[in-house]
């Protein structure tokens, strides 16, 4: 393999990884705060890309209006889901919350089938994301660096919110101890809702970038990225935002490199990701960043 080809694969892996990471953040934030695996998160990804798609083809918005708007609207959908399907179940046994999450997932998928139709739709890449660039001898289509850069900007923004703002401080406190955070005068419900909005908005960004990379959308498109991002979140240590980023990039790069170096194993790409999950759960269930906490009695 030539060096330029290697870099091409690497860029490809990093861009796929940044998509996994964007989606994984939502899983990990919700888990960190509510100890809930939000099964509907992958379908939020789908919703984000559809809203962006319809903004362009139905409302004739320029992509640079439609895409941010879709991110915003999907954040609002996240708030609605949290308020209606999760918040009323906070005091009951956790299994009810899980069941509700599965129900929301099926609801979104089937609403998608009814409203958007089962037939895949072609997602139009904006022209600036569809030009071939030559970087140091390697040919890259411009969407690859754009995906990576967009993701990095979003990660930077997220880190700023979580580590440098008041609400971010409350989010971190909440993930440790909800009751005591309330004793600090923090309206914990508001902060939980804000976390859902943030996670859903990032998932929408992931969905739009996913549709730019693989320009075809359909109502079940969120399932696979959702599962992979979940694996990424577990790999990094679920509950830890930095872990989600690391897990996402690692999984994306590993997947692409597996196919690049062992083309005859290409068909096992998804099996590879699930094997990582199984091995992880067996040998290091807390992931890379997660600390082993002794079981509390």
């Amino acid at each position, binding site marked *: 393999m030539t060096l330029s080809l290697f870099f091409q694969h690497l860029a490809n892996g990093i861009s796929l990884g940044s998509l996994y990471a964007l989606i994984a953040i939502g899983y990990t934030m919700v888990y960190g705060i509510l100890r809930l695996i939000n099964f509907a998160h992958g379908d939020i990804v789908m919703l984000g890309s559809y809203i962006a798609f319809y903004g362009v083809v139905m409302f004739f918005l320029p992509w640079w209006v439609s895409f941010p708007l879709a991110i915003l609207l999907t954040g609002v959908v996240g708030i609605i889901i949290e308020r209606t399907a999760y918040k009323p179940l906070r005091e009951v046994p956790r299994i009810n919350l899980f069941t509700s999450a599965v129900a929301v997932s099926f609801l979104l998928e089937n609403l998608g089938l009814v409203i958007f139709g089962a037939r895949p739709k072609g997602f139009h890449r904006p022209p600036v994301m569809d030009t071939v660039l030559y970087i140091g001898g390697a040919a890259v289509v411009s969407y690859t660096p754009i995906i990576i850069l967009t993701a990095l900007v979003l990660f930077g923004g997220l880190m700023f919110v979580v580590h440098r703002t008041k609400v971010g401080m409350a989010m971190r406190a909440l993930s440790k101890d909800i*009751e005591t*955070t309330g*004793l*600090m*005068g*923090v309206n914990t419900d508001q902060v939980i809702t804000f976390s859902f909005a943030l996670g859903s908005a990032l998932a929408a960004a992931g969905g739009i970038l996913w549709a730019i990379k693989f320009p075809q959308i359909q109502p079940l498109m969120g399932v696979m990225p959702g599962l992979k991002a979940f694996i990424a979140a577990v790999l990094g240590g679920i509950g830890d935002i930095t872990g989600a980023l690391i897990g996402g990039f690692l999984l994306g790069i590993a997947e692409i490199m597996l196919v690049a170096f062992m083309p005859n194993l290409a068909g096992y790409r998804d099996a590879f990701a699930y094997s990582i999950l199984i091995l992880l759960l067996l040998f290091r269930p807390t992931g890379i960043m997660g600390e082993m906490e002794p079981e509390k009695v």
Partner: protein
Amino acid sequence: MLEVRDLHVYYGGIHALHGISLRVPDGQIVALLGANGAGKSTTLRTIAGIVKPSEGDVLLDGESLIGLRSFEVVRRGIAMVPEGRRVFTNLTVLENLRLGAYARRDSNQVIQRDLQEIFNLFPRLEERKKQSAGTLSGGEQQMLALGRALMSKPRILMIDEPSLGLAPVLAQDVFEKLKELNQAGQTILLIEQNARAAMSIANYAYILETGNIVLEGPAAELAQQDEVRKSYLGVH
């Protein structure tokens, strides 16, 4: 003044409080004493809005706090240092203190000044302000939990078992600080198993047994009673 009237609480089917009434007048230290499971923590948690009572009232200056959620109770001026300190070990010492001031609308300047006051009271916290709270010792964590609650500028400070798990010398330190705070005007409602230490700083004390108040009176008088001396002060 904080006033609790005829409070009944059921806790998972158990009748935990059978009609508790107590008063915490401004500027005083009131101690709530009793054995494990007597209902001391439940009383505090009910005042703080964590536990909902089935009957009774909690009044701050005549206004009922029943039905308010815990973050709203803090905003009305009642802060709590929970049992076992429960500092946020994933946050720095400074962040813990700032979180205590979360609900305040004051300017950053005012909050900065209050932070400095906390640091004057607990110099160890200033030395360690950049460290994660998880690296602090038990005594330091208790100071942090106290400082964090004070950052909300509470009218009434409630403290659940400040000496729990602390070496006697450190517990003594904590009680000294509480006395100091009270002399500066802080009203305090204190729960403590170490009745001797609590009575030494309290103005008034209530003794709780299985969800009932069985004795009350000025702390100095109560400490002289035979029953109290036998059951709570370990004097025979």
